[in-house]
């Protein structure tokens, strides 16, 4: 027999959680949260029962956390504390008390992290290490509000607070974070099952060769000299100075097209002001990320891949050579607008237009133009 007690209703904030759905990868974060709650509950038990050398047998086994439903609105998993009512022990422990204290300690620690205050004494170093996994799947604009609906003290776990909490443990050398990286496989050691990934900015990091990815990694390694690049989704290991040291694991790896938009735009992040005859303006990194996302979301793989170049004014120019047509799209990363110009080299027929790339209509217009140039039907 078990008794279900309402325990937590954390709120997941972010576009991915709209429609009260929770991606499976986020469940790993909640699983790590359960582990932390058990450990902190044990710690409170030990603190209040110093005469006891050991945690009562079955302390954790008799308790578990379960998601019973997902609330309306944003994704709010309702988490209950399931306590076994058949303990078989002479001195049953009231788990609820220690789990409630554990929850309070964790909420307080996260709240302190949010305000950049010390968490010393609230949780132990060993507890703080759990934050390396709790919330690791959260992206930049996402958060897990553990103490929802308390608006004054939401205990918001996001990239910043989990990093703060992980690094608050003095013994921790760094933290991990889910990353997407592009680069070339410049070394592969099959004896050690490790490979070296040369990032687009030239840095080289170490990563494991997992059996499921071995063929792709070795294929990319064999074609390193031809400039073949890969894209990797995995868990990155950062040092205390926020520098990526390597990959802990690789979830997905794929070979990239030679004209991959993301890889090419990432190259432009290394340009500094003055790059072109002392006057070229460096493209804004946020703007380049925005453009990468826009191409990913709004530019079909069926369209011809663009050639991309930085402009001296800090923008990006996309270009296509399609039969007799030379088309260019001069993109202003600040205004998110672009100037289209196409010229038929044989007939001198031309078209030009300003388009808004912050709207889907702009991207649709671009797709229509390119499709018509490819098919030879140039009527607008």
């Amino acid at each position, binding site marked *: 027999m078990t008794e279900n007690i309402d325990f937590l209703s954390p709120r997941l904030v972010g576009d991915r959680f709209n429609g009260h759905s929770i991606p499976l990868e986020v469940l790993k974060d909640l699983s790590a949260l359960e582990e932390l709650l058990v450990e902190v509950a044990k710690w409170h038990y030990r603190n209040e029962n110093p005469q006891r050398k050991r945690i009562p047998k079955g302390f954790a086994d008799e308790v578990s956390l379960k998601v019973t439903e997902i609330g309306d609105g944003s994704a709010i998993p309702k988490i209950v504390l399931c306590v076994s009512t058949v303990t078989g022990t002479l001195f049953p422990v009231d788990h609820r008390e220690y789990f409630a204290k554990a929850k309070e300690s964790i909420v307080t620690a996260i709240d302190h992290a949010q305000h950049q205050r010390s968490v010393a004494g609230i949780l132990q170093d060993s507890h703080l290490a759990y934050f390396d996994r709790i919330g690791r799947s959260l992206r930049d604009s996402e958060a897990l509000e553990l103490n929802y609906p308390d608006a004054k003290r939401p205990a918001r776990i996001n990239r910043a607070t989990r990093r703060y909490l992980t690094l608050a443990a003095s013994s921790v050398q760094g933290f991990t974070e889910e990353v997407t990286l592009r680069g070339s496989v410049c070394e592969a050691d099959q004896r050690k099952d490790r490979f070296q990934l040369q990032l687009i900015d030239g840095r080289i990091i170490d990563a494991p060769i997992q059996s499921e990815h071995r063929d792709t990694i070795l294929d990319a390694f064999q074609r390193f000299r031809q400039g073949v690049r890969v894209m990797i989704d995995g868990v990155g290991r950062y040092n205390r100075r926020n520098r990526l040291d390597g990959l802990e694991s690789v979830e997905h790896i794929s070979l990239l097209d030679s004209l991959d938009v993301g890889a090419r735009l990432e190259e432009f992040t290394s340009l500094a002001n003055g790059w072109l*005859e002392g006057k070229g303006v460096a493209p804004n990194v946020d703007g380049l990320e925005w453009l990468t996302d826009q191409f990913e979301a709004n530019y079909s793989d069926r369209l011809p891949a663009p050639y991309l170049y930085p402009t001296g*004014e800090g923008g990006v120019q996309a270009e296509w050579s399609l039969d007799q047509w030379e088309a*260019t799209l001069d993109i202003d990363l600040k205004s998110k607008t672009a100037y289209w110009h196409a010229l038929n080299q044989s007939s001198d027929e031309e078209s030009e237009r300003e388009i808004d790339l912050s709207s889907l209509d702009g991207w649709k217009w671009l797709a229509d133009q390119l499709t018509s140039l490819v098919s030879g039907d140039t009527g607008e």
Partner: protein
Amino acid sequence: MNSSTTLIRQIHPSFIQEGRITSQAFRPTPKDEDKLSTYDGDQIDARSAWKHYTETLGHASDGALGVSVGECEDLDLSVVPDPEPFPEHVLIDFSEHGRKQIEKRSKKLKSHAETRGWLFQP
């Protein structure tokens, strides 16, 4: 300098992707007052121009392409010697043209240059 004179234009490494050159390489920027800098091929060869550009001026170039004075004039672009920065300096003047016309001319010049091929690559 006459209509058959080759005007040597340096190509920045970022202006080449997978061997393809951007038409920007032949488009002046507003900062340059719509005038494109080149070297007078009658006064300096492509290798020496590249050496001057990269070593003396300290700019980046993956090589030199060229267009002729006649090709510029056919596109209503005047070619003007500008020896102030250095004696072989020549400007292709786009300033009489609007944006659409500048775009068209830069694409045309690129096409001429590509037909001619690299004059020098290190």
